[in-house]
């Protein structure tokens, strides 16, 4: 199935991209999406993730068409 992956801030800078579409097996988790999208790069310890713009946990299961985002702790305001 195809899903969209977005990276922000330092994670995007390190990876060298902000947005990508990848193919992944049914039943894949968010952590598996990270590994597939970054060629097994280490996920920064305090990284946060979201499915379709809602915060989620790394073992959440993704579905076709989902938008998965990874980003560091937020620093707005």
């Amino acid at each position: 199935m195809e899903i969209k992956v977005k990276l922000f801030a330092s994670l995007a800078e390190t990876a060298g991209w902000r947005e990508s579409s990848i193919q992944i097996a049914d039943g894949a988790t968010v952590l598996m999406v990270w590994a597939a999208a970054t060629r097994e790069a280490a996920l920064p310890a305090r990284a946060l993730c979201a499915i379709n713009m809602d915060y989620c946990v790394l073992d959440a299961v993704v579905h076709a068409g989902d938008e998965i985002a990874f980003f560091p702790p937020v620093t707005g305001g």
Partner: protein
Amino acid sequence: MRWFTPVMRSLFFRQSPVVEMTIVIKSAPFDPYAELASFEARVFSSPGQFGATATFVGTMRDFNEGDPVQGMFLDHYPGMTERHLEAICADASERWSLLNTLVVHRVGAIAPGESIVLVAVWSAHRAAAFEACRYIMEDLKSKAPFWKKETLADGTRWVIENTPGGT
């Protein structure tokens, strides 16, 4: 029925409260006080409609972690950022009796002295306005998807985390 006065009518037919909020993401400098004045003029038909306004304005400092900061870039997650800010304003409206809320936040390149964020809350009495304004601001700082990158004399660095609200 003669006893059905306007006051009683309003008690009997009061509609469920509507959550009033406005979220604005800006990529250009803004004057928070001009935003407040124009928002009030636009939203309230008369100033007597509210009794309390609490506002918080966050401004870019020219120093951080002991280093002079020349400028900053604010990254965000278009869509999720607005959604999260709407959710926290709706949450605040459930916890306190609020008349309206306004959140304005900058993104993109920012210079020292420019406003980064404005949170404003209108209510009938001061406690709700004070407490909801703080609540919205603290949630924004800890959960809304924005990220700061500072420009120093010798390069750039991402801000790792925000200072706790108590300091």
